[in-house]
């Protein structure tokens, strides 16, 4: 038996998923061990092996693929434990990363903070000024060398950085993406002068315009580089010692996996693959289920993350912010707001109303009902007060919750605005769900999409618990709790199932009518590079393809662009005209007829090649036979739940989701409990189990087809 294994060690738990040759899925998790990640990794693998009915040794040795997702880089950044990093910049521009374009004080913060300067500050510098060395060299916007590289100065700078104790160096020169010669030369010098130092240069990390964002990307890459490299190497080594036969694959934020040896070159592309992991899992599942339009939602303790799948493709972005640092890197887009189970509910004394979030009780003290000293009511406390979350069965009964304390805390808040505890709890959920729905609106409507065309996938601890409410708010087609009990390991599932994907980009401004010779030449160069990389990926690929895209916008429209697919072959003026027409009509379709002026010029400013090596994997197994009858073991009984949509307490049935089978249908009002979350099924709603174990929630007056097989 061969296994396709995905492991995500990013969160509190190390999650893993295995799919066997026959497409059957197995899930397991174990607490993440921060001191030595491999302990948690092997704990999880042991648990997984038990699920598969084999030994850990056999599981690893018979792995056909092994993919790893991690947030090691993000943690290094957030905890400021990255490498001591030096930066080489063009003379006169070493301050760019410190100036942060003047917007670093507020980048990525809640707009409410924008009015409150005294409550905002820049983040600590990633590179202290003393470790930024300016180099005499200059290239212009056409890639022409204006001032040649001063090689002696580079040598001296590298030496002085090494003397100052750096273990990583970033090189980011102006216009290097138009002409990388100077950065390449610096690399040679670093290799000679400081062969042990980790380095990265901007034209390799992200060959895109905008020196601030490119410099940040390069610096972060170096900052997390040495530790990421060590992490990948050690994971690889430990797994191979344990018998792994194939190269370890590492999850990338762009949505594919890469061999560990390629991933260490640009560790930035593995940064934050945690939040993206769920989206990638959703993507593969959506293809299975035939869902073209998906809103992937992940609600946890402190945050709510949303990603979109449109026309079967995840939406990508190249603008990212981490710790108020803005950087460019192509990745699957997720948007996040502070809105989760831990969000605090507080009185607004001026309007005598209740506010929920953005402050959170976090993990410590956490919700009042966790018994860890929390005193202010949270969304989770409201869930407990209403009975949507069982106080006894939380985490499979391992952590009984203090419902009385939750009632007291929510009740005290409610009293201040004249509400009973249940009314206040229902109100807290309404407010929280309205915020979640608002973020989804921002992700869809502002881009020109209609949420009613979408299906919501809900995962994360608090996602399934609240989806019935925020999904209805948006009028979406339905809700899927992907993989049912496997929803909490969706990210690992994404790792297990994804292809090898790499993107190659180059940026140069082309004004329509585009210079065809130059354009075709650029495409040929990029595609040659992409092809080479595919060849390096080895012969595991059964299906290899290159796709080409152009990022286009109206002239001057710096803050917006559309990615248009470019036809294969040599581009002629007819093809180009067609692409421009497509751009104009797509623009008008998204933003209204006449939004673009015909007389306004069009720019193609970035070429993007996607290289995909589709990996062989079994088709996910489905249950052959559906059963109508719900097993007796699945029915846990009934309890009274105060439903926020009905504003009434109703006797509701309670089920154990682990024992529900394909064909089972739970009609509301009911709650389906899972070890890591609960799924309320409101009055008039129904929850079906599909052939793949997904739980499909049908909202009123809408239907979503249940996939049989």
């Amino acid at each position: 038996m061969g296994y396709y294994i995905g492991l995500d060690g990013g969160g509190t738990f190390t999650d893993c998923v295995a799919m066997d040759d026959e497409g059957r899925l197995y899930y397991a998790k174990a607490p993440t061990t921060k001191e030595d990640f491999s302990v948690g990794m092997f704990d999880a693998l042991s648990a997984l092996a038990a699920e598969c009915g084999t030994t850990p040794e056999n599981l690893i040795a018979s792995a056909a693929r092994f993919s790893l997702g991690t947030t090691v880089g993000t943690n290094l950044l957030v905890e400021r434990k990255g490498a001591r990093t030096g930066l080489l910049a063009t003379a006169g521009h070493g301050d760019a990363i410190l100036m942060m374009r003047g917007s670093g004080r507020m980048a990525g913060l809640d707009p409410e903070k924008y009015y409150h300067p005294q409550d905002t500050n820049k983040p600590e510098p990633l590179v202290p000024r003393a470790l930024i060395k300016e180099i005499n060299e200059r290239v212009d916007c056409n890639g022409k060398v204006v001032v040649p590289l001063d090689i002696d100065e580079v040598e001296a700078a590298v030496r002085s950085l090494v003397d100052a104790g750096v273990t990583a160096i970033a090189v980011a020169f102006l216009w290097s993406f138009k002409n990388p010669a100077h950065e390449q030369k610096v690399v040679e010098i670093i290799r000679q002068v400081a062969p042990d130092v980790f380095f990265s240069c901007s034209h390799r990390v992200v060959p895109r315009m905008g020196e601030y964002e490119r410099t940040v990307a390069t610096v972060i890459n170096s900052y997390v580089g040495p530790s990421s490299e060590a992490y990948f190497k050690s994971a690889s080594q430990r797994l191979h010692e344990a018998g792994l036969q194939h190269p370890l694959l590492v999850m990338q934020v762009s949505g594919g996996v890469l061999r560990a040896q390629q991933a260490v070159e640009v560790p930035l592309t593995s940064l934050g693959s945690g939040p993206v992991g769920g989206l990638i899992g959703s993507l593969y599942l959506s293809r299975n289920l035939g869902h073209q339009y998906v809103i992937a939602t992940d609600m946890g303790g402190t945050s709510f993350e949303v990603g979109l799948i449109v026309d079967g493709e995840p939406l990508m972005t190249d603008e990212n912010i981490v710790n108020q640092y803005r950087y460019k890197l192509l990745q699957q887009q997720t948007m996040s707001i502070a809105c989760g189970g831990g969000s605090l509910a507080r009185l607004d004394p001026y309007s005598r109303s209740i506010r929920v979030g953005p402050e959170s009780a976090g993990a410590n003290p956490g919700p009042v009902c966790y018994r860890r000293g929390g005193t202010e009511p949270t969304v989770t406390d409201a869930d407990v007060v209403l009975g949507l979350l069982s106080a006894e069965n939380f985490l499979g009964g391992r952590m009984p919750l203090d419902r009385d304390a939750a009632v007291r805390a929510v009740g005290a808040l409610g009293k201040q605005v004249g509400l009973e505890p249940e009314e206040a709890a229902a109100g807290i959920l309404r407010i929280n769900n309205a915020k979640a729905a608002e973020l989804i609106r921002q992700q869809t409507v502002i881009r020109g999409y209609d949420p009613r065309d979408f299906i919501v996938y809900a995962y994360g601890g608090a996602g399934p618990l609240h989806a019935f409410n925020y999904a209805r708010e948006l009028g979406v087609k339905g809700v899927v709790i992907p993989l049912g009990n496997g929803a909490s390991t969706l990210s690992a599932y994404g790792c297990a199932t994804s292809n090898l994907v790499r993107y190659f980009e180059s940026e140069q401004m082309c004004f329509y009518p585009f210079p065809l010779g130059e354009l075709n030449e650029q495409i040929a160069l990029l595609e040659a590079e992409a092809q080479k990389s595919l060849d390096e990926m080895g012969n595991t690929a059964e299906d290899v393809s290159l796709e080409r895209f152009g990022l286009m916008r109206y002239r001057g429209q710096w803050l917006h662009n559309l990615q248009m697919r470019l036809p294969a072959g040599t581009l002629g003026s007819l093809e180009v005209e067609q692409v421009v027409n497509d751009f104009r009509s797509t623009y008008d379709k998204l933003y209204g007829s006449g939004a673009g002026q015909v007389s306004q010029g069009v720019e193609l400013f970035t070429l993007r090649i996607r290289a995909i090596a589709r990996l062989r994997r079994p088709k996910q197994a489905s249950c052959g036979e559906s059963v109508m009858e719900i097993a007796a073991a699945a029915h846990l009984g009934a309890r009274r739940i105060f439903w926020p949509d009905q504003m009434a307490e109703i006797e509701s049935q309670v089920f154990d989701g682990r024992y529900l089978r394909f064909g089972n249908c739970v009609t509301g009002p009911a709650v389906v409990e899972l070890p890591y979350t609960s799924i309320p099924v409101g009055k008039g709603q129904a929850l079906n189990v599909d052939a793949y174990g997904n739980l499909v929630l049908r909202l009123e007056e809408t239907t979503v087809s249940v996939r049989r097989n």
Partner: protein
Amino acid sequence: MEQTANIIWDGVARGYIPPDVLRISPKLQLHTKGAADVDPITYEVARNTLLNINLEHGQTIQKLSISPITMLVRDFQCAILTENGDVMCLGPYLLYLGNMLGLITKWILENRSEEPGIEDGDVFLCNDPYVGTSHQQDTGLTCPVFWQGELFCWVSNSVHYSDVGGPMPGSFCLNSNTIWEDPPCFPPIKLMERGQIRTDLEQLFLRQSRLPDTVAMDLHAAIAGLSVAKERIIKLIERYGPDTVKGVMNRIIDAGELAIEEKLQLIPDGRWSERVYTEAAVPGDRGIYASQINIIKEGGFLYVDNEGTSPQVGAINNTYAGLAGGTLAAMTIMLAYDLAGVSGGLYRRVKFRPVPGTITCADYPAPISIAGQFNMPMVVATATGAVAKMVACADSPLREKAIAMADVHAYGGSIFNGINQHGQFFVGMNAGMAVGALPASPVRDGVDTGGLFWVPGMEAANVEENELAWPVLTLYRRHNTAGAAGAGRFRSGLGAEEAWVLHGAPQMSMEVYMNESFVKNQGLLGGNPGGRSFFQVKKNTDVRLCLAEGKLPQNLADLSGGDVPMYFKGPPITLEANDVWSSNLPNFAGYGDPLDRDPALVAIDVSEGKLTTADAQQVYAVIFGADGSVDEENTRACRAGRKQARLAACP
């Protein structure tokens, strides 16, 4: 102020000040029934939705606009207003534009409700500063939202359009002495009528511009923003009913007002003033002029006047709209910082008693077009000084919110034009200095290149973006040092400077630049004022030779060639191949006596290379020992000696 009693503030001869009760034609039915008993949960859900509708309005404009600089420097604003034109909330963009949207809307209610009437599907356009804009380029659009035949509320926006006509590219007409030498003013016209664009009026507006395509796209972006906001408000009404939504809107403003009232209780009654000087009413003028703002705080209200301000003169004027907008911007930051843009409650507590015929409250036909670069920052700065002194007298925690003065004239901005390396005509506005700086406060240092606090979210263009759009090479863009400029017990954040040389074109023309002949900023309560903002041009230098020899010049002083004598405002200058020019955004104001600054903070600045040990000694009287650490004892002695010497020097 008795003199203001007889003045007609009609928006024609003089800036428009709305009366307490608007004169609206009975033809127009207003929806005025706000439910008083909306439950606290529905209130919060609807409040959150309304604030987000306004954000979505702004994001739509940003996304669809094609004026990169306008969007980068957030030179726009959007708002939701009640049926009678009271601003409920504004967006996190250029703050002084918020109140103006209220003025334009109220003027329309008073002057357009009878003829040609206000109807569902209409959108009004107005760029007349006497009605309510900061200058003609900041054109406002305001759109009534109707529900079942009644005017329910308004959604409005203001966007800086790149060129709206007039003798100068970019429409900043430095030489104007009257409005007739300025870009045209359009009092409110019905750009859209019952859902249809009036193409004749659209063309009338676009026909004035040197960049009609750009302005057309931006105008449509602004209209798209209004449509989004209007549609969502209608949906909200459909869901909760008009009376509930109106009840929520009223309660949002009431709650904001209550929060302001609570803050006002922390401030003693009294009067606070600030005066800021400017120069050169037109290029070549050697005059010096004053802008003054006085705030009287009495009980729960603030009364603002500009007595002490110079009579209107040359091109350096703004109307009442600018005075009110600029003052309210400073107050929003120091009094309404925790209200997420709900400023309607604040607006209710501020009463203006302006002196007309002054540079900060000019009468027709004073020209206004350059106010965006000159007067508006000056008004904000003047107001900032007065508000900060008042807030610094308040009880904690309000006193910590005082913030010292930022720039007096727009962030070292310059405006230029020519043919770029792609063969296209361009009008450029340098947003490189939009890195800004956060000034000092009573409890902490400012933030280096921390943006402009009254233009939240503003950001500078990347050097590469500039070099792609314009035929220039940026020799350097770097932080200032933390010397005397902006020093204090808490120092200002550092500003920045940059230097350019032409690249890819033989010449270009520079129309607007600012080389202050004296420092205009004022320090806060013993702090040093910010530095002098300068613009320097060196002609016929050896810069090409240096580059050819493989050296990137990093200092204007190292180059040969002659300094051109630069005035605060000069005539347009032609920049040529061997010229080098540099702009400086100085550090802003400091707070408190520099001799009281914690020596440890001085030592940090020295260790980070921001401050020389010589300046540390001269400005802060901090002495370093041989090992580089602060010599505490000598520092104490030096500071005591300095204070003694101060007294000895001025008996």
